[in-house]
């Protein structure tokens, strides 16, 4: 991580789970064999074919931070984490290529018996009535505080849409796990969370709003605009992009 000053290119790779396996698999298919250096539990690695690339194994959310701060040159992480971590993402990072795995949608979901709430506009109406009746704002449980705020303020991450119905009469309660259980537990009225198949939502009696898909996220190869780039590091970047066919 600290080598961004030297002439090696630092590539950050997810340190565990499906995301790591899929990343290593994709790079291997492209002829770039990523392996750990030293201890199997360690976080440093290398690319067997290209010694000038240094690999850092870190968690996907840490990768977003490292990209933002220029501590690595390239990284593999989800667009959800990038946009959540970096409010001015376009200024600090550049998505070089979607990688075709790690698919997850960040969505707004409400209890499915709210038959009066289908859209974000309905949600705002219901939230205003809720405030009048309960004297408090509707609570949204999420770990995506930044994305939620921007989406509820009317911002749309889909460049073709740009703006949409805003929801204002709410407050966020931060949730660090089992978010989908918050409405039933009475700690929030609705949630913003990721889903891949929707089955967990269904099991918890929740339904995605018709215009409530905040982001269709997947793993991406991402470049840090805040890292320093030497001519060699730029060449290495082009080599990786070419090898991945991205």
């Amino acid at each position, binding site marked *: 991580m600290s080598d961004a000053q030297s002439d090696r290119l630092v590539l950050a790779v997810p340190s565990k789970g499906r995301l790591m396996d899929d990343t290593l698999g994709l790079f291997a298919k492209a002829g770039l064999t990523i392996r750990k250096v030293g201890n199997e539990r360690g976080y440093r690695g290398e690319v067997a074919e290209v010694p000038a690339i240094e690999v850092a194994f870190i968690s996907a959310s840490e990768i977003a931070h490292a990209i933002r701060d220029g501590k690595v040159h390239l990284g593999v992480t989800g667009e959800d984490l990038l946009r959540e971590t970096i409010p001015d993402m376009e200024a600090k990072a550049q998505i070089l290529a979607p990688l075709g795995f790690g698919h997850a949608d960040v969505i707004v979901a409400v*209890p499915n*018996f*709210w038959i009066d709430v289908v859209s974000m506009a309905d949600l705002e109406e*219901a939230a*205003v009535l809720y405030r009048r009746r309960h004297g408090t704002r509707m609570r949204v449980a999420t770990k995506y505080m930044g994305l939620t705020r921007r989406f509820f303020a009317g911002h749309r991450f889909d460049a073709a849409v740009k703006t949409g119905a*805003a929801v204002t009469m*709410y407050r966020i309660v931060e949730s660090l796990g089992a978010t989908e259980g918050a409405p*039933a537990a*009475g700690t929030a009225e609705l949630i913003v969370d990721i889903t891949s198949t929707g089955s967990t939502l269904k099991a918890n009696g929740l339904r995605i709003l018709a215009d409530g898909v905040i982001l269709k996220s997947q793993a991406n190869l991402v470049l840090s605009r805040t890292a320093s780039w030497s001519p060699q590091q730029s060449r290495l970047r082009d080599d990786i992009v070419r090898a991945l066919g991205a």
Partner: protein
Amino acid sequence: MTGTAEGDELAVSARWIEALDRQSVIMMAIFARAGFEPVAPAVIQPADVFLDLIGEDLRGRTYVFSDPSGAELCLRPDLTIPACRLYLARHGAEAPASRFAYNGVVFRYQPTGGNLVRPREFRQAGIESFAADDPGRADAEILALSVEAVRAAGLRAFKLRVGDLGIFDALLEAVEMPDRWRVRLRHHFRHPDAFRRQLRHIVQPNTAGLEIPDELLRRLTAADENTAIAEIEAYCAAHDLTITGTRTLEEIAAHLKGIGEDLQERPLSKEAAGLIDAYLRVEAPARAAMAQIRSLTSAAGIDVSAALDAYEARIALAAQEGIEMGDAHFSASFGRAFAYYTGFVFEITSSALGDTTPIGGGGRYDTLMETISGAGRVPAVGAAIHSERLLLAVRGGRP
């Protein structure tokens, strides 16, 4: 003025702080002379009050943290709410007239880093007047004192922008429509896009857009509350929908009734919608604007004269205080963006910092106190000066 955190640290040189202190001594002396009691609310405030009042727009810019006991706290993002809490702590359920002045640091997170005009910590010098006998006079006094304070600090040229959310409120009351439309229009008022969509919707109601059958919606609309709740319960059981959480079937029934009634209601006339739209476009010198609004409304047969009379009385009172408010720029839309204002609003801008970086401003907020306390209404008006911006403007834009 780069957008870096270093910008903040550069700005906070000892000399700059000394100059800010001198400036605040001048302003606080003016406030005290006018009979405002200097108060010093706590810097650390309970987060809950702020989060529930100001919403996520400002929360995203508030430093929220937990103390070792787990209590959620925040660094105050403004001084109005802390001043209200101080008033409530002191007076409980009574609501005596009371006037506070304060000067202190507030904190706002700047997502892309702070700079000189948008620092993450800055000083607010302000005044709040609670439960004054004569609201118009209190409005005029707050405006006059704010102007006097920035003048005394050395600001020679500035612009004054004014608005009055009370006139909009009166207009909505005077135009014939179901009360739930007023609730919605009032709520969406602060978001121009959503407001336009609402207005369009009540002029041209389209379909409900719900997933339940139209026929069920019609039945629910006609039914009394208990019948409607039983119908919804039966529908949920038949469709395997789980009834859970704090939101109740009563609320769903009431909301659906409103949606159903909207579809049956005679739509708002195009003329009425046009009048609301035309009003919100009024931009003129304050005195001329009143004439425009009088002719707009009387042509539509709508009477908002009480609100307009109050507005003109305020102009006259301000003149007595030495402020020629008639020349200020009146904007009917002005004040929409602020969370809790309900009536007169104003802001002071300078050519040094530009129109989008106000040096100070304030307004009337008659409902904030009851929202905080859950008890009775305490009408209030206040203003705050952004000390760092004022000093910058006085120095022509350079620190």
